[in-house]
């Protein structure tokens, strides 16, 4: 029964007439780092708040450790939250903030002192226990917020864009630190962010959300290489998308008539005659001066830009669509105005159902 630590089944949430979570199912494994990723308003924070107990689902069930929690108040649930705004108690010292959960549970004083010390060590804030939150930097406040949640030994730690208010440098440092904490403590982390790079760096699995539904739930690697939907392909990294109809499917290789010409790719689970999209990442896009067997995608080089780590070539297609090609080194033979043919290795492209 309790193979999943958190399990949402057919959950719906309405705010008035606004349907923000639509028939959502989500199983979270014990000890994993799961990220809910999506644009603002996609419902990711609402899911977190429903698991924490700050919002009630309109219908559906939410289970934590196999036990339904809809009837439990936030203070009765074995999950803790790290808030985007830190939500530290401004009238308490760092020590009292971290000790809060144990104090309300009436844990003996000596044990509280011992465990707060442990926590301060864990988040590297020794010597700060006497300070008030308004005398600390954003990064320090976030460490206090994390320690304050972790001291309760939660089954699940919910993090709501915890690094949103920090600058880039500090974010990167905290990302590594959060990952270290999660590995060290073996606690399930459910992390909400709109930053795909952050999600990629830290997560075991990512749930990409859009409009109240999970569009794709998989490992970062899989989500990048084989996005399940057009939205995911566009939202995660850069992609070139071609739309067309599957004409033939032989030995796992499909021939597609796209709106810009013929193309082929490795496919499974598609039927000939089906409408589909092809997603090709810029770094695996290839080109040639001559037509390549199975492809007829022609375009004109618009420009070549050096963007630091790589060269980016934009190729304008017949209908005006710009295809992106990224290379670490620029090919000497490519210049503005060249007519070229685009192609790719069949296993580098992904088919997406229309």
């Amino acid at each position, binding site marked *: 029964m309790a193979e999943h630590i958190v399990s949402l089944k057919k959950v719906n949430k309405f705010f008035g007439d606004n349907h923000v979570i639509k028939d959502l199912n989500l199983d979270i494994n014990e000890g994993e780092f799961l990220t809910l990723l999506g644009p603002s308003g996609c419902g990711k924070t609402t899911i977190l708040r429903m698991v*924490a*107990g*700050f919002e009630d689902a309109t219908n559906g069930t939410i289970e934590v450790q196999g036990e339904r929690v809809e009837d439990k*108040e*936030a*203070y009765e649930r074995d*999950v*803790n*939250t790290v*808030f*985007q*705004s830190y*939500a*530290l*108690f*401004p*009238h308490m010292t760092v020590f009292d903030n971290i000790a*809060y*959960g144990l104090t*309300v*549970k009436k844990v003996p004083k000596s044990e509280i002192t011992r465990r707060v010390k442990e926590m301060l060590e864990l988040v590297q804030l020794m010597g700060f226990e006497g*300070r008030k939150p308004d*005398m600390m930097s954003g990064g320090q406040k976030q460490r206090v917020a994390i320690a*304050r*949640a972790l001291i*309760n030994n939660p089954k699940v730690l919910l993090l709501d864009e915890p690094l949103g208010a920090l600058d880039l440098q500090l974010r990167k440092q905290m990302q590594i630190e959060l990952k270290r904490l999660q590995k060290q403590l073996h606690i399930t982390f459910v992390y909400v962010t709109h930053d795909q790079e952050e999600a990629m760096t830290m997560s075991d699995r990512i749930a990409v959300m859009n409009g109240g539904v999970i569009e794709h739930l998989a490992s970062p690697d899989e989500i990048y290489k084989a996005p399940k939907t057009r939205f995911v392909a566009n939202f995660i990294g850069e992609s070139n998308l071609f739309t067309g109809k599957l004409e033939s499917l032989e030995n796992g290789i499909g021939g597609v008539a796209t709106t810009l010409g013929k193309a082929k790719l490795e496919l499974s689970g598609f039927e000939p005659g089906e409408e589909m999209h092809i997603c090709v990442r810029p770094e695996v896009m290839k080109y040639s001066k001559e037509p390549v067997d199975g492809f007829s995608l022609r375009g004109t080089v618009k420009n070549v830009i050096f963007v630091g780590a790589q060269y980016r070539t934009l190729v304008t297609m017949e209908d005006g669509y710009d295809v992106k090609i990224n290379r670490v080194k620029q090919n000497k033979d490519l210049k503005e105005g060249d007519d070229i043919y685009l192609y790719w290795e069949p296993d580098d492209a992904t088919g997406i159902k229309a």
Partner: protein
Amino acid sequence: MAGEKRLSKRLRKKRLWGRVSNVYAFLVYLFIYVPIIVMVIYSFNDQKNNYYWNGFTTEWYEKLFTNSDLVGYLGISLIVAVAATIISVIIGTIGALGLVRFEFKLKSVISNSLYIPIVVPEVVLGISLLMLFEIANFPLGMTTMILSHATFCIPFVVIIMRGRIAGMDLSIEEASMDLGANRLITFFRVTLPLLIPGIMSGAFMSFTLSIDDVIISNFVAGPYATTLPVKILSMVKTGLSPEVNALTTLMVLVLLVGILINNAVQALLKKRALTNIKSYF
């Protein structure tokens, strides 16, 4: 040369304007303070009827402390004011929480009714409360005074507290609940401490409104809960004794000392906070 002259003319005009406005402000302040100055002067006047100056005396101050029932009326005023303040702060603060945080059927009716005691002339509220107590056959006295004073103080407390509560970060209370504190513990450990500044200003407002009220008190005081203002109003017909001047002068003195102490404490706290911050760096 010409430009310099013009500039100095403009400057002169500006300076004159500044002087005129200073004089104007002084005159208005004088108008505001003349009654108080007269009150203080007469408290030292060696003449019972207070009409003309008859020489300096401290007789009225001595009388005030030895044999005067005025201090007793002041005591009643203080009891009513303190009790009404406590009631209105409790009901007003908790009520403001309910009005800000929750939706319920009567919400807009209750919200709008708060403005009635604030805008409707006090005499209307006075007669309506008098009628209420008469119909309920409730004898006029301390209880009716305290209930009435709380009624016109509560709306001010709610309006002050509503602003403070709406400006509070909701996630701080959520964090408390998330960490295992139920609503009651959260209220006493987190919400209440954060609302203390607002509660203080609400209490101050209530106390000053209550202690000076004549219009409503005059209706609901009855014979046994005569506050100082009600007593003074009843004395007007026969002429006020200079003891009243002496008592009010002392009250102004207490108020001024209170303000000065408050300012000093605030300044000290600010200074300490600054040195605290400095010691960290």
